[in-house]
């Protein structure tokens, strides 16, 4: 056997070795693809932000949408506690979290092809939210506007608020901020009710705060009743049965039926305005509640009992 024959042999050996490559590729697609595409380690299964659904207010104004790998919040901090935030590093909050299953990208049967997530329309009324923010100049506090006829929250303000788009950059600052900008005050902020509870003499009020979300509250301090603006609205709407927060928030769920207990309460409180100052140790809280059917407004100022003038100005515009 001479050199030429040996060269041909070596060439064939390498060709056969190389032929293994396409066979392997095909075999991998046929035999292993499904398992690999559903493996829990596969980071390609993580949600693609580009396919996340949009969030709109009741008039169809854009509150959150995706562009490329970024989540855009065109209204800035105004509805920040409604939309919440979305961040690959920091997770989700607000409606982004609460309706995550609805918003997130969907996958085709093959598990690879992405389809856009659903659109979420909130009960938020953006013009009313803006005007409520204008009449509520508190640096710290919460404001809530509820439509009692429809049982929907039209506007909710939590101060201080945050820029949802900056969740990645500012997270640590927010975490260490004593004023807790991430706290959703209208629903999760607990304030001493003080004379507010006595003024209504709600015998049915339990001696502990009732949660509106899947959330457990801290124990009330020294027997003081702690209550959130959302709970005040909730008791005015209907006391007793648990009202899911989604019903207050959204239009998607079943139509609202006016609870029977509401009618007499509403009658007696026709055009009623009430305000009080509650104290809990160092914390001073100014409450303001107004019921102008069909709207209910609940305002809370934190750490200020010298804002009566602002309060009165707010009343006039409401």
């Amino acid at each position: 056997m001479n050199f030429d024959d040996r060269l041909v042999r070596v060439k064939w050996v390498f060709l056969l070795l190389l032929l293994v490559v396409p066979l392997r590729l095909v075999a991998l697609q046929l035999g292993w693809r499904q398992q690999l595409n559903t493996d829990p380690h596969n980071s390609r299964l993580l949600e693609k932000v580009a396919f996340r659904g949009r969030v709109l207010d009741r008039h169809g104004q854009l509150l959150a949408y995706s562009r490329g790998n970024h989540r855009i919040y065109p209204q800035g901090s105004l509805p920040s506690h409604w939309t919440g935030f979305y961040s690959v590093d920091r997770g989700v909050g607000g409606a982004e979290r609460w309706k995550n299953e609805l918003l997130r990208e969907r996958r085709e049967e093959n598990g690879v092809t992405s389809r856009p997530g659903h659109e979420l329309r909130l009960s938020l009324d953006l013009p009313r939210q803006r005007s409520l923010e204008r009449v509520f100049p508190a640096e710290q506090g919460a404001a809530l506007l509820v439509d009692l006829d429809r049982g929907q929250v039209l506007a909710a303000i939590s101060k201080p608020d945050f820029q949802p788009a900056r969740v990645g950059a500012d997270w640590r600052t927010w975490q260490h901020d004593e004023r807790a900008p991430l706290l959703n005050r209208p629903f999760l902020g607990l304030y001493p009710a003080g004379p507010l509870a006595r003024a209504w003499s709600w015998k049915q009020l339990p001696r502990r705060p009732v949660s509106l979300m899947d959330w457990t509250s801290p124990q009330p301090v020294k027997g003081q009743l702690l209550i959130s603006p959302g709970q005040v609205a909730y008791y005015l709407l209907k006391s007793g049965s648990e009202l899911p927060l989604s019903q207050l928030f959204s239009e998607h769920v079943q139509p609202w039926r006016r609870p029977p207990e509401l009618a007499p309460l509403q009658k007696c409180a026709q055009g009623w305005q009430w305000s009080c100052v509650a104290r809990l140790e160092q914390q001073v809280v100014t409450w303001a509640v107004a019921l102008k059917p069909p709207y209910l407004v609940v305002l809370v100022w934190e750490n200020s009992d010298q804002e009566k003038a602002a309060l009165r100005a707010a009343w006039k515009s409401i």
Partner: protein
Amino acid sequence: MNAQLAWEVALGLFLVWILMLWRRPVPAQGAAWSNEGLTMVLSQALVFSLYGLLEAHVGNHGRWFLVALAAWSLGWWAAYFGLRWARCRGDRLLLPLACLLSGLGWVMQLRLEQALAVNQACWVLVGLATLILVTAYLKRLDQLRRWYGPLLILCLGLQCGLFVFGKERNGAALWYALGPFSFQPVEIVKVLVVCLLAILLAPAAQDPKRLTRPVLAVMAGAWLLLETLLVLQKDLGPALLFFGLFLAMLYLVSGRLRWVLGLLCLSLFGAMAAYNRFGHVRVRVEAWLDPLGHYQDSGYQISEALFALAWGGWQGTGLGLGEPYRIPEAATDFIYVAWCEELGTLGGCLLWGILTLFLLRCFRAAQVSQDPFERLLAAGLACLMSWQSCVVLFGILKLMPMTGITLPFISYGGSSLLSNFVILALLLRMTRREL
């Protein structure tokens, strides 16, 4: 997506075109429009249209990359005419095939990391200049035989110098650093080793009686020395590469299958010893056997490569639309996987076809050559490139433990590209009379 399928069909037609030219005689000297020029035009058109596809899918690459691509293209045309200037009418398919491989690799690097693509374009230009210089200077490859001593010293100096001047990266000192540039000497050493072996063994290849014991002893000594050096430097890829190269050369020269099989058995013991002795060998074998089970540490690379392959499926996600950035070392060792994710198994098979045709053409250069030294040199270079492709492709497809080597002309890497151009220059020089 349809545009991509059309592009892949065009690539397939190009493969058919190459096969049609495979044995066709060369047109008469002085023909204005030779097949080589046409093939160059076709391969560059494929590269430009792939870039267009990337722009259509992603479209955020600035105008500068078009300039870089134009420079890349002009560089290849300069090489095409430079070879004529150097009076080197070599094989007419090697240059267009290498051009296509480098172009496809370049577009993939641009898609993976734009900064790399600029570097790579510069390296291609440097490599093409080297190609012209080597072909212009080495009129006859016989000249190499006179440089046995200097080449040997250069070879040993480069590899041993790593112990003193080597720059450490990823736990192994395998690079020389010169300001912003780094250089991996083993890439040049492997070409030098093929040259030295060819010089040493050329008489024996002609006449088996001249395969004397001293020659074999020198070969075995060089082999052991190289393997020891590489194992000490923890550079497993080149160690494996040289092992296959020496085996192939030994078989080519001696024709004794028993020796080859015996050495293979011996190497199995050696591999087991390495497995028991060295932690980093054990880690790689574990990662190979069960990458998903070792996802958190050693199996991470291979797992991500497998995920990418499965994600791409038959047709691929579309160039620029997949997520190959999740694969570590996507631009160097794993570029074929990144390609397969975005262009699918179909595109992967087509790229494999081009690479295989290029490698077969290298073997053909050895077959058509007349001079025994040149034949052995060409055969050695062809074996080197083929074995290198096998090792890296098998590694990334989980057919054997992963060792970090580059894919010829496709992967990112300056020194590897430079050595590929030197190999191309040698092959073009020795096919000058034939094709």
